[in-house]
């Protein structure tokens, strides 16, 4: 789960990382009120879970409460990289003398957390990695944790000034605590700044937490922003389906993430465009099948409200999952909720013969080959259009 900047700031502040005072606002009026209480120049920042907010016009300065109102109104009307802005952060502005970048990420190859540090702050790190990789310092954090001298050593070449090094090192140690105790897969401060008053502070917070650890972090449930999650995404999550919406018109319901990705790729390979990624898991119960079909047909609608999905491909390789169970689930689901678009079923593996019998009794058929099924579903989708 990606946290919003304001949530990340909260987490930082709780761990003693210095951040400038700020509050989140959902309306321009709230933004004005916050600016009024701050009584200084403020920065208004769009709270959306994508990078490049500044370039998209989602970060603006405001020197008066009225200006804060106007800027917040503009930003709240934006859609940045497809995401509508529902909230803005109103924070005290700072005078900046230096911008740096610091982050802790997981190094999958070395199986250790990795500190990435750069004198180039305030720009996207991927950009720095591409254009000036030598300006990024990388240091792994040993299994038993980061030590103060190691943190100091990292900042010494960058800051030189003793007290500044001390402050920055302290922030890095606290960032490590955020990462470790918070089960993060990314904890990033970009920019980490030195202010005109000689203080080192975090001016942004980007945090990604490891979904697998949710069971030991009760508060994460409250961080999930209902406005950020489409109704279908929520429904998928609640039903235990793994679902990602794409832009195409051929829906697919697949058992297993690897096969689901390969199915999307195959749709593309044969000239179609996948509408989604959906892993239905090993389950075969009709409710889950119904939910999956509803999510797919319901999620991509055009202006007139008609579904953009023209046909759906059901791809099950029965290993441990039994094909006859899945077939029963499909038949029951369709009996209760007829599907508005053609359905192509591919079933093979355990109890395949029994599955075919169940399907044919219900007037359905299934192919054995994934390639054949995909070609068929694309053709059916085109018939619908014609």
């Amino acid at each position, binding site marked *: 789960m990606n946290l919003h900047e304001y949530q990340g700031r909260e987490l930082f502040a709780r761990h003693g990382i210095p951040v400038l005072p700020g509050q989140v606002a959902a309306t321009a009026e709230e933004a004005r009120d916050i600016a009024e209480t701050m009584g200084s120049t403020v920065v208004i920042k769009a709270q959306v879970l994508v990078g490049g907010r500044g370039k998209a016009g989602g970060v603006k300065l405001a020197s008066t409460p009225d200006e804060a109102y106007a800027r917040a109104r503009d930003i709240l009307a934006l859609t940045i990289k497809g995401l509508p802005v529902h909230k803005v952060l109103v924070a005290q502005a700072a005078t900046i003398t230096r911008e740096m970048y610091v982050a802790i990420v*997981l190094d999958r*190859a070395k199986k250790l957390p990795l500190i990435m540090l750069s004198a180039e702050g305030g720009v996207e790190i991927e950009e720095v990695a591409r254009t000036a990789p030598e300006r990024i310092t990388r240091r792994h954090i040993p299994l038993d944790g980061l030590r103060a001298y190691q943190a100091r050593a990292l900042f010494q070449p960058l800051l030189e000034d003793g007290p500044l090094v001390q402050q920055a090192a302290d922030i890095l140690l606290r960032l490590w605590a955020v990462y470790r105790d918070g089960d993060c897969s990314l904890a990033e401060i970009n920019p980490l700044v030195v202010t005109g008053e000689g203080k080192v502070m975090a001016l942004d917070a980007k945090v990604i937490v490891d979904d697998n650890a949710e069971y030991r972090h009760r508060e994460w449930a409250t961080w999930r922003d209902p406005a950020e999650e489409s109704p279908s995404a929520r429904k998928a999550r609640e039903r235990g389906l793994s679902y990602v919406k794409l832009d195409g018109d051929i829906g697919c319901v697949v058992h297993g993430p*690897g096969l689901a990705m390969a199915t*999307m*790729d*195959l749709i593309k390979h044969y000239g179609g465009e996948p509408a989604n990624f959906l892993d239905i898991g090993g389950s075969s119960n009709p409710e889950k099948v119904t939910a999956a079909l509803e999510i797919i047909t319901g999620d991509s609608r055009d202006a007139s409200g008609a579904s953009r999905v023209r046909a759906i491909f059901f791809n099950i390789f029965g*290993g*441990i999952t039994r094909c006859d169970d899945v077939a029963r689930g499909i038949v029951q689901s369709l009996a209760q909720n007829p599907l508005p678009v053609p359905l192509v079923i591919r079933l093979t593996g355990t109890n395949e013969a029994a599955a075919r019998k169940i399907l044919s009794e219900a007037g359905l058929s299934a192919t054995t080959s994934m390639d054949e099924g995909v070609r068929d579903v694309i053709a059916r989708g085109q018939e619908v259009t014609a």
Partner: protein
Amino acid sequence: MSILIDRHTRLIVQGITGRDGGFHTQQMIAYGTRVVAGVTPGRGGEKVHGVPVFDSVAEAIAETKANTSVIYVPAPFATDAVYEAADAGVGLIVCITEGIPVRDAMGAWHHVAALRDAAAVRAGAPANARRNWDSGAGRPRLIGPNCPGLISPGQSKVGILPGQICAPGPVGLESRSGTLTYEVVAQLTHAGLGQSTCIGIGGDPIIGTSFVDTLELFEADPATEAIVLIGEIGGSDEEEAAQFIRRRVRKPVVAFIAGQTAPPGKRMGHAGAIISGGSGTAAEKMAAFAAVGVPVARIPSEIPGLIAEALERRRPRGRRSEAPARRENGRNAAKARRPAKAARPARAGAGRNGNKGSRKPAGRSGTRAARAR
């Protein structure tokens, strides 16, 4: 032959009294795996499908001389099960459990690695060989988590892979996926291409055994003549595998990468399957393989054909008596011998298909048996 598991595998099922553990115990026994013990703390003395249950892995080993363990324990307790198995001296630990936090998996990985290193040092293994030193009692290897396990067809299966789709033969298969693995295995079997061992290494960001590890094992296994590698988006395991193939693997490898149409920043089911910061894309991984001369199947159904071709090239008739070519000479020698085939664009500059005169034609009978079905 096979890698990691065979007829001598004596298996402990950790979490045998759970729903999944019980069901798959039955499936593994039916396949012919020697399941000698189960472990569930507090349930010692019971039996599940005729298998005695113990309170601890140490007891189970003392009583049954088990050498392998498979874990079906729920995520919050699964890493504890890995530590317990490793400390009790299990040689091969296969963790099926999905949803283990990365922080926990990281700790378990380093614990297992430290035990291996210590054992290697004690035995005087050279420093450069320690990392991949042979596993065994007291020098554990971890597979997974979040994996389907592995199967050596006709001998043993450990995990949840469906046995009926496999057939014994010369193809080694390694994959980050579950059901996609079944898909490819079934297509191989259907094409008459049996398998030495099929292994699912797991879909998490931190896994015990990587593609590089399994490539090394398959390269050393006399029964494996060709290797299928099924990767997916996220991480850089495939890129590292490609480099390793260039340096160290002389058997033919065919690759496939899932997720060519996956959008960046979205987790595609597997915790490890995510394109982050613009890296870990399918295109990069496919290019990495192509650059070292590994043919990349565009779609799964191309895999059997590419493997069959590779096996065909590898077994030129009447050339078995040739002396083994030295590694450095291998490239030129290979080109000189098969000018037509070596010039295929997909394999340009590869020149590492075979010519290892010491090879045995193992696995052929298995292939025939599979065809006869």
